[in-house]
């Protein structure tokens, strides 16, 4: 609980620093603050408590995911230093919005009451609408902001209607009461309609297939750092929250619901991968790759009691690879209008380290051994197999094979083609973040049990 308060204070401090003419100090202060908050959160690891009439719950699940979100925000804030170099007067706003986004993210995984869930969701979404439209002079960014806003608030409306129906059936917003209601036979039909509407809304937020159409456009149009935020932080926050909601709402998850999840998972993987094959813009390609990863993450819902560890491992592996990839993308496409794959031609000659980092992160996403992406897929497919969904596992493996093609398209552009521009220096922050993120990715790939045993 102190995590949420500390994050809110840090966000306000960012805004105040601008007033007191400490613009240069904002990013160092934020990084130091986030490190302190990360340490504070980790020390809470073994406590299980609830605060404010069960509004906020602290347990292993929330602490593990909150720590991951804080780490990701730390990387994103570090990348901001160079990314917003040309707009110094806006730095405090952007950093403060990122911190408030983290606040929403932490509130979303540590809710004990649907009111807290809704507030967290909205804080996260509203911050992302602002960040997506944060280049007011670029029409692409405007368009991305508008599309994300319309789709996001539509999804929020659907979730809100679901919450109202659940309240109608249970007479409480408290998750414990909802859990009891979901296990009792006397619960009215409103409850199940409500659960379905929340499911639809959350599938919008994680961009699973029938509700994915906004993702590629928004990812392509938004500024690159915002895309990095959306494809790593926002996606796993929504996924962790969806998982937690399912643990409470679907005490006796029936066969029809599981079938729907299986179908959505298969379609997310297939549509995401097949559409990614024909993309020439790397942000758009990663958007479709994110859709297919959402399909993999949805598999965790089929075996709710056992998969918490493997879901956590999967999202950690995916987000660390994503951060490393985006650090390189930011470096390559910093001064350009779009993010075509041709800009990566010859990166292997110009800058071997950054090229190696990008290759490693793409290989991790594709699921090649040594990198943690392989073990993540292995664990989650293993759990799905134990739950008895053989078809889903086969679809998952076929899709991993398809995905190798488009990841290798970028890798071959980097190593086999001639560079079409002169070498440019790597900003120090990009270098540190890229190497650190991929290093952590490989480290958890070598020692998977250190994360798997946490939850």
């Amino acid at each position, binding site marked *: 609980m102190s995590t949420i308060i500390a994050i809110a204070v840090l966000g306000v401090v960012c805004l105040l620093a601008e007033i007191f003419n400490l613009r240069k100090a904002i990013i160092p202060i934020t990084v130091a603050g986030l490190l302190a908050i990360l340490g504070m959160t980790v020390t809470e690891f073994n406590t299980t408590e609830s605060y404010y009439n069960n509004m906020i719950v602290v347990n292993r699940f929330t602490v593990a995911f909150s720590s991951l979100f804080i780490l990701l925000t730390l990387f994103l804030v570090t990348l901001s230093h160079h990314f917003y170099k040309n707009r110094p007067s806006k730095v405090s706003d952007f950093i403060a919005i990122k911190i408030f986004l983290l606040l929403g993210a932490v509130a979303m995984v540590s809710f004990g009451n649907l*009111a807290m869930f*809704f507030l967290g969701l909205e804080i996260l979404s*509203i911050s992302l609408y*602002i960040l997506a439209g944060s280049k007011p002079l670029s029409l692409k960014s405007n368009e991305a902001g*508008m599309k994300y806003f*319309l789709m996001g608030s539509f999804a929020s*409306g659907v979730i809100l209607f679901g919450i109202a129906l659940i309240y109608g059936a249970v007479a409480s917003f408290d998750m414990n009461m909802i859990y009891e209601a979901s296990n009792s036979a006397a619960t009215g039909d409103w409850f199940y309609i409500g659960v379905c509407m929340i499911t639809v809304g959350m599938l919008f937020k994680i961009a699973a297939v029938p509700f994915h159409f906004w993702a590629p456009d928004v990812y392509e149009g938004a500024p690159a750092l915002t895309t990095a935020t959306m494809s790593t932080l926002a996606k796993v926050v929504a996924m962790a929250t969806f998982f937690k909601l399912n643990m409470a709402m679907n005490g006796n998850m029936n066969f029809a619901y599981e079938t729907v999840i299986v179908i959505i998972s298969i379609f997310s993987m297939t549509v995401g991968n097949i559409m990614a094959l024909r993309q020439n813009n790397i942000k758009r390609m990663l958007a479709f790759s994110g859709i297919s990863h959402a399909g993999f993450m949805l598999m965790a819902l089929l075996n709710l009691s056992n998969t918490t560890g493997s879901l956590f491992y999967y999202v950690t592996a995916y987000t660390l690879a994503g951060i490393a990839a985006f650090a390189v993308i930011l470096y390559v496409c910093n001064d350009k209008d779009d993010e075509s794959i041709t800009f990566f031609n010859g990166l292997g000659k110009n800058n071997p380290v950054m090229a190696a980092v990008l290759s490693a992160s793409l290989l991790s996403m594709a699921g090649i051994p040594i990198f943690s992406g392989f073990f993540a897929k292995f664990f989650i497919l293993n759990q799905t197999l134990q739950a008895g969904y053989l078809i889903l596992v086969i679809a998952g493996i076929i899709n991993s094979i398809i995905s190798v093609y488009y990841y290798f398209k970028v890798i071959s552009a980097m190593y086999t083609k001639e560079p079409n521009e002169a070498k440019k220096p790597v900003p120090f922050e990009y270098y540190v973040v890229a190497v650190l993120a991929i290093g952590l990715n490989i480290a958890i790939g070598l020692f998977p049990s250190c994360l798997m045993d946490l939850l």
Partner: protein
Amino acid sequence: MEHILKEIGVETYLYLSALLFSIGVFGILLRRNAIIMFMSIEIMLNAVNLLLVAFSTFHQDASGQVFVFFSMAVAAAEVAVGLAILVSIFRNLGSIDIDNLKNLKG
């Protein structure tokens, strides 16, 4: 207040707010003027507020009404951000027709 709900029945409120919600959904799907789409989002959220208040009276429990305050505050913040994005679109394009936003495809 309770006897009113007994006479009318909570289902009626449910139908009314479902109807309002659907009007909002169709407004977003069919209309192309951004302002009208924003109004449709507001109708969706207000339909939910109505439902929450009706259920709150039905269950004799205040937490539903408190939730309505949260959702009203959130809706206001959301539309403020939406209008800001809309203003920057209007500056660039000189129009608020959603159909003009067709740069991102693929």
